Structure formats: C-alpha cells, structure tokens
C-alpha cells in the first residue's frame, strides 16, 4: 500500500469496486465473491505472519465462524447478511481470545503444527457430531440484507458480492492502518527477535495474541461469507487442506502489501476456474505448478512486482547464506 493513500480514498476505492459488480457477468461475480472472502482470511494470515508466525489452522476459525452463523441462522432465524458477518467475526474472535494467549508463546514450526492440530481437533469433533450433520453438514437459508429478501438470483449474487467486497475492503483498510501503527511496527520487531522486544519492556506474547485475535476475527467473517455463498456448511471448512489453501494465498501475496492479497486471491480463483474448465481432472496439478512457479520466481510474492526497494528494511530474513550446497564456509 502506498504510504500516502488516505483512508478516505481507500473507502472510495472499495465502494467503486462494489458498484463495479453491476457491470460484471454472473460467473465473474461469484468468482469475485469467493476471491474476496478468501482474501479476507488470507489477510488475517498476513497480519499474523508479520509477527513471524504462520498459522496452518485458520480453518479452525473459518469453521467456527461458519458453524456459529449457520446455527444462529437456523435457530433464531437471523438471516441478515451484515449481521451474519458480524456474528461470524464475534464467534471466531471469542475463540481466538481463548486460544490466542495459550498459543502465543510458541514460535516457528511449532506454532504452525499446534494451529494445525487444533483445527484437526475441530474437524475430528465436527465429523462425528450427529447434531451438526456429521460429515455431510447441513444447509442454511438464503441471506437477506436490511430486511430485503432477494428472490432474483442475479440480485442475490450481487448483494453477496457487495457485502463480501465491502467487508474485505474495510478489513484491508483496517489492516493498512494497523501496519502503519505502533502495534504493526512492533509486530515486525517480534518477528525479527522476540527476546529483544521483551528487553524493551513490551510483551511479545501480548503482541502475538492481539494479532492472532485479529486474524481469527477476519477468518470468522470470511467463514460467514463462504457460508452465505454456499448456503451449506460441512466439516471440510476445518480440514487441513482448506487451511493450506489460505496459506497458499498469503504466500502468493507476500507479506508486504494488502493490495497484493486481493490480487493473489483473484489470481488463484482464476487459475482454479480456468483449469476446472479446461483441465477438469488436473486442477490440483495446475495449482501445484503455479505455486512452485511463484515460490521460485517471485520469492517475495506477487506484491514484490510493484513494491521494490522501499520495504527492503522489512523483508523476511530469507537470504540465509547457503554454504552447504557448495561445501564452502565463507
């Protein structure tokens, strides 16, 4: 994100993007809806990754948000789209508040493994809970907006698109503000060296926890959006391959730019739907090659295409001198 871009301008961009949906053909509209909702959860992973911790279990919060919304919708009949997004965010946010403090002291691969394990605990519980439909899940009614019910599918699709884009856009603006704030900058310091941050009198655990909860809130809202788009929920929401896909988007984007997350998410959805269309049996193959290509040729993600030297100070310590390959120690 450019340093100078004012939040008001960004809000304008978001509204523009939402209205642009009017001009899009139907298939692009649903693709963009999914892309926006995936971008939201990947944005949470990027927020968390700025502290140096990558969560391989965002599916946990994705599912928590989705199931929370679905249950409340079916029991109390809350179908309003905006309310559902908020319910999803609150459900996962509360779960994040419980798990965050417990998990914040782990780093690196252990953090990833623990989040993965937690999401699989959730998956294991959901698959076998008959009350929640087991591995088949259950259906949810069509969402409404501010008391309006949408019977025309085209209108309903547009409403969903608008809600997704506005939610994700607002989250993106919030993330940009966060990245520039004291908390955002000190998060980068935690990634570089958490002990030194502690010596400065700050609590590294608390910083990780706050970022973790933010990521959980984003994931919950994203789960609500995904639920509205599919009108069906099943334990697959919490499975590790689902989480893996979100990390995929985050890595594709790189950790430098909010805009890159949106671009990466759209790119992934385009690759997926085109390979679905032309190579229906080998879309995972295409996805794998795509991922390898990006990691190989754009090691800092898609964002590095337009963000270059200015962020050099913030980059990941990826260039550890490789000496083992040649057997020469400098």
């Amino acid at each position, binding site marked *: 994100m450019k340093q100078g871009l004012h939040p008001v301008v960004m809000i304008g961009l978001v509204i523009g993007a939402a209205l642009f949906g009017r001009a899009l053909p139907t298939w692009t509209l649903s693709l963009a809806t999914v892309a926006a909702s995936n971008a939201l959860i990947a944005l949470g992973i990027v927020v968390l990754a700025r502290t140096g911790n990558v969560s391989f279990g965002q599916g946990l919060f994705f599912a928590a948000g989705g199931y929370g919304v679905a249950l409340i919708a079916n029991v109390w009949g809350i179908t309003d789209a905006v309310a559902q997004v908020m319910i999803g965010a609150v459900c996962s946010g509360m779960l994040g508040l419980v798990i965050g403090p*417990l998990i914040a002291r782990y780093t690196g*691969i252990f953090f990833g493994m*623990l989040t993965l394990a937690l999401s699989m605990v959730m*998956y294991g519980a959901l698959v*076998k809970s008959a009350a929640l439909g087991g591995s088949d899940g259950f259906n949810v009614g069509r969402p409404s907006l501010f008391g309006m019910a949408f019977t025309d599918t085209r209108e309903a699709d547009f409403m969903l698109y608008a809600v997704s884009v506005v939610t994700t856009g607002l989250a993106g603006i919030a993330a940009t503000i966060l990245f520039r704030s004291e908390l955002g900058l000190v998060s980068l310091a935690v990634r570089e060296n958490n002990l030194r941050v502690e010596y400065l009198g700050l609590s590294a655990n608390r910083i990780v926890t706050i970022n973790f909860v933010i990521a959980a809130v984003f994931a919950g809202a994203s789960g609500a959006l995904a639920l509205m788009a599919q009108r069906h929920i099943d334990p697959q929401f919490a499975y590790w391959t689902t989480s893996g896909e979100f990390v995929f988007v985050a890595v594709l984007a790189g950790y430098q730019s909010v805009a890159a997350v949106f671009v990466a998410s759209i790119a992934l959805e385009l690759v997926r739907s085109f390979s679905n269309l032309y190579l229906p049996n080998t879309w995972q193959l295409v996805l794998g090659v795509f991922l*390898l290509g990006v990691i190989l040729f754009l090691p800092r993600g898609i964002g590095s295409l337009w963000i270059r030297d200015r962020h050099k100070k913030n980059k990941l310590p990826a260039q550890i001198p490789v000496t083992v390959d040649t*057997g020469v120690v400098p």
Partner: protein
Amino acid sequence: MNFALTIIVDGLIEASWLFIVALGLTLVFGVLKILNIAHGSFYALGAYVAATVVTMAASKGLPPALSFVAMLLAAAFVASAVGLMLERGLLKMFYGRDEVVLLLVTYAVFLLLEDLTKLIWGVNPIYATQPYDLFGNVSFGKMYYVGYDLVLIPIAILSGVAVWFGLNRTITGKIVSAVIHNEEMSASMGVKVKRVYAFAFAFGVLLAAFAGALTAPKISVQPGLSSDVIILSFAIVVIGGLGSVEGAAVGAILVGLARATSVHLLPQAELFMIYFIMTAVLMFRPEGLFKRETARRI
C-alpha cells in the same frame, strides 16, 4: 480382559505400519529440516505400485509368496526413484529458504502427486488382496487374527532396529548424524552434504512406499489415501519429537492404541482423540516427548 487384549493387539497392528511411515518422515525432517507434506503421497504411490504388481503377478499365475516379495521391491524401487528425482530436480532449488516456504513447496508436490496418481490409476479403488491370505489365520483363545496383520509387527520392529542401528552404529550413520547436528561444519570436514541430503530423502521416501506396499493388501487403494496418512504420521512425529527415531516409535504406539481404543469404545472420537493427544503434548512439551530443548541464539 479379552477386550483389553483386542484393543492392544489392534493398536499394535495399527502402530506397526504407521511407525514405518513416521520413521521416514522423521528422518527426512532430521536431515533436511523439511516437514514433508508429500510424504503421504509417497505412501500412496507405494500402495498403488504394489497393487499393480500384485494384480499383474496374479494374472501371470505366480505364487502369492513370490508376488509379495515382488510388490515390496517394486514399490520401494519406484518410489525411491521418484523421490530421488524430486530431491535433485526440485527440492534442492529451495534449500536455505524459510521452513514455512519449504513446507509449502512440499504441499505443492503433494498436489502434483495427488493428480498424477489419479491420472495414472484412475479414481476407482484398486484391490490387491491376494497376499493377504499368505500367513493364514492365528487364534488367540476365542479371537482370530489375520496372520498378515500380525506379521506387520515384527517387520516394523525390524525396520526400527535397522534404522537405529544404521544411524548409531555405522560410519554412514555417523556422517548423517554429523549433518543433522551441523551441516556447515560437516561440509567443511569434507562430507558431501548434497549427497547425504539426496540419500536421506530417498530413504525416507523408501520407508513411506514400503509401508504403503505392506498395507496395500489390507485396504482399498484409492485417492484420498495420502492426506489421511500424512495427517496421522504428522501427529506421530510431533508427539514423539521431530527427528527422533525412539520418539516415532512411542508416538506410533500411542496413536495406534488411541485409535484402537476409540474405535472399540467410542467410534465418534477417533480423529479427535489423536489430535487431542497431539495438542496436549505440544502444549506441555512443544519439542515432543523425546527431544531435548535446544538453546536459542539471542
């Protein structure tokens, strides 16, 4: 009493093949510091190759004992060839990158192999049950076990002892341990680290494929096998401590018993139990049960 025995025997059978898979995973992590998500795919590859070989051998009228040996050899050979090619052709381009990036590279390989196996063998389940009757039935009091299942236990113990012996009592093993502890230092002592990497990876793949081939007659070989197996072997190596052979053994027994217990007593809780144990271990001993904590650099 009988019931407890059933659970223990079932658990050990389950633990035996899981241990062989986890052994490969933990070795690859120990040497290359890569948590290999594609490990489950190599297990599946082994199972597919074995099923194909068994079917071919049966159609030629070979005796099942011969086809049993043939399937093990073929699976191990094919998979380690694929593993070696992958390490030399692909993985080496990513060495030195962040461990999370390496994890994603193996995730990409997992996606690739998943579709490749579907392209080669199709999506319908394949059965290779001929060798399953090879060792007859064994009875314990009132209970009957398939001999083949029980044979898995000594095979697992043998593989574990062989790997432990190889690592701790041979020159090659010492060299591998040196690379595990400090690759730069061993490189400067003249160890060809590149070669150690390639062979360690191929050996890890061989173990996964071997386990796949061993279990092929027990199961229906079909897509989705790899993601189920990798998630179980992840739990095992994390419980035992990444990179530890003893840890993998204890982890496999724990997971095997947990699975058998929940299957018999509370079938709803199977996956839940395993991941519950994994979470508990991670919470209290994040390095796993069998690994000393290492000092960190400030």
